[in-house]
């Protein structure tokens, strides 16, 4: 009682300095956030600027491109700062770099593995969360244990398995590699199903539904956030991974994905010629993913937080 009164009194006395303090804190917050935003935007801005840069070579002496005169390939520039030539060159196939094809390859792989791995992950996590059977805990523990081996330790073995059935340099191989084991990644999704009240299932069962119907007709329709989360992750995977893709494809340019393509543009022997094209390619890869990600951000956050709550 008395303690409460005391704070009330001191609170009133300090209200003026408190307001001033609050203002300073707010200004400091804005300054901090602005600095932070600049730091985070600079690299992205730089890639975009570089993708339009007229001056050739890997590194320009200034952050913002400067006017440049000279001949670059078949185009003559006089005091040019920006150009679309980099994008045009990117889509002109040469020396095995066929960006349009790589883009299409990646898209096909992404779309297929997105469907398969979302189904695998959602099915597994639903089973682990809602159904009770003998080997459930065993399965979960085994999954946990297997997740702790470094992923590409098994890369060589997978390579030889795929080679022995003769599909190691195909897009199908990539789809299988990206989605094959996705049943193991059920933790986040299971966290979501764990929070759905069991009473729903029970009510449906009383009405005579079997377990398959409960899943397809009741649980699945209300799991949109987690499905989107899972699908988004699976779709983005092939755009970003290059280790497996590189290992499987080797020098087989026809089935390259954008990640390997862009990475090899930065090889020592290519970098001077291809650097601006690399920047242009990066923009073209990043833009669709950014749009997709931004528009589905809500679900992503729900997925992350929902998963974090229950591991």
């Amino acid at each position, binding site marked *: 009682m008395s303690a409460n009164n005391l704070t009330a009194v001191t609170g009133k006395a300090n209200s003026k300095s408190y307001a001033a303090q609050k203002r300073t804190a707010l200004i400091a917050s804005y300054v901090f956030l602005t600095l932070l935003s600049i730091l985070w935007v600079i690299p992205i801005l730089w890639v975009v600027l570089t993708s339009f840069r007229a001056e050739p070579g890997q590194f320009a002496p200034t952050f913002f491109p400067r006017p440049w005169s000279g001949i670059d390939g078949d185009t003559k520039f006089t005091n040019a700062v920006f150009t679309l030539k980099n994008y045009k060159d990117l889509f002109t196939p040469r020396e095995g770099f066929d960006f349009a094809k790589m883009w299409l390859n990646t898209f096909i792989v992404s779309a297929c593995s997105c469907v398969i791995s979302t189904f695998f992950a959602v099915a597994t996590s639903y089973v682990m969360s809602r159904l009770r059977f003998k080997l459930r805990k065993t399965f979960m523990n085994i999954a946990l244990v297997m997740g702790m081996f470094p992923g590409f330790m098994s890369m060589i073995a997978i390579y030889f398995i795929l080679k*022995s059935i003769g599909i190691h340099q195909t897009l199908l191989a990539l789809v299988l590699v990206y989605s094959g084991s996705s049943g193991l990644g059920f933790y986040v999704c299971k966290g979501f199903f764990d929070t759905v009240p069991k009473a729903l299932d029970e009510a449906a069962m009383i009405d005579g539904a079997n377990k398959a119907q409960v899943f397809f007709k009741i649980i699945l329709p209300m799991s949109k956030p987690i499905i989107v989360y899972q699908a988004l992750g699976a779709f983005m995977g092939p755009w970003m991974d290059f280790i497996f893709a590189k290992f499987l494809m080797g020098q087989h340019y026809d089935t390259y994905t954008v990640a390997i393509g862009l990475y090899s543009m930065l090889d020592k022997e290519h970098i001077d010629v291809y650097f601006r094209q*690399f920047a242009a390619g990066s923009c073209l890869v990043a833009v669709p993913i950014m749009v997709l990600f931004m528009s589905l951000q809500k679900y992503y956050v729900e997925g992350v937080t929902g998963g*974090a709550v229950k591991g």
Partner: protein
Amino acid sequence: MSQKNDGSEIKVPDSLATKLSFLIMGFGNLAHKQFVKGIGFLAIEVGFILFMIMGGAQNIINFFTLGTVETHDEVIPGKILPVRVFGDNSMLFLLFGVLTWMIIAGFVFAWRANVKSARQVQKLEMQGKKIPSFIDDVKLYLDERFHITMLFLPIIGILTFTVLPLIYMIFIAFTNYDKHHQVPGNLFHWVGLTNFGNILIGDKRMSATFFGTLVWTIIWAFFATFTNYFAGIIVALIINQKDVKFKKLWRGVLVLTIAMPQFISLLVMRCFFANYGVVNRTLINMGLLKDVDHAIKFFDDPTLAKVIVIIVNMWIGIPHTMLMSSGILMNIPQDLYEAATVDGANKIQMFFKITLPQIIFTTTPYLIQTFIGNINNFNLIYLLTGGGPSNTKYYAAGHTDLLVTWLYKLTSDQADYSLASTIGILIFVISATFSLITYRNTKSYKEEDAFQ
């Protein structure tokens, strides 16, 4: 469920049909007119026997010998030049050996299911109950055995793309499959624990590399996890203050970088900090550095390279933790704070007594996962520094190499597969010990059903 419990208390002696199905799979089902099931079991048995005769048995023998005939040149009478004769391929022998073991395990599983099924129909018949038709069985897989239907394909995927390769690679760790024993030219053999001995104590250079890299891996994982974690929380707190405007904008700017494919941001960062890169150029233009020859060589100095790696990781990781802790912050019930205000708590007290415990409670599993993820954070190191600067005291590893990137280099550059596998197993032991201790103590593991 009812089927399982039927008569399980009474031991019934096996009938002739059941006994015969020990030998001829599916006999019990066929005798009770469950044709589809019976023929299915029978087909499995016939297929298995054929497989073992056609090569399965040989595979098992090969698994133990790993090949006996080396590639050699043979002088054949009538020909002037000796002819190259290709020997056994130890690598394929091992792979098919493992595959055969898995098929045998699968067969044993099917055989047990067969016996169980035969006993069950026998019981049902003795109790005079209706023997389920094929249709009834199918229906069962949509209801009581729905988990089998759902898990069938995912488990096939896991077996082919995780279990088989993993078992194979674990076996490789116990062989001498290295650059001196390359297939198909040479054979490799079982060597027991030699590789582990070499890495841990035997080979001076190897163990120096292993322990040096291990220490850096742990330091890295610790800093990478906690810098991101706390910085992300702080940023989230600042953005989520009541008076701060344009929340969506601030958040959006950071989220933009999540959406950017990681390998692109990493490659860009590599160019950024290169000797002739943007950072050095900017410093020169600002007059802080004299010229390009005096540029800061970020990736040539071990300590500097390590610091850069951690800083770049913050650039990549903070948006993730910010997004996550924002979500958690918004979910903390406001009345908790109101109650605390009524009780006279100040902001700092509220932070340490309400906000922080809530965040830590909800994110512990995430923290553990991130820590393990960072131990295995291949992309960041490989794309940013490539493990460099090189370290002459190490075997095939640089100063910033983590255990995983070392593993990768051993496979792709050195072809020391057995060493790489051994390191893989050691990484596993480290991560497993760590997460078993921590994960099993978290509330979300213990109170799995709390929300249901």
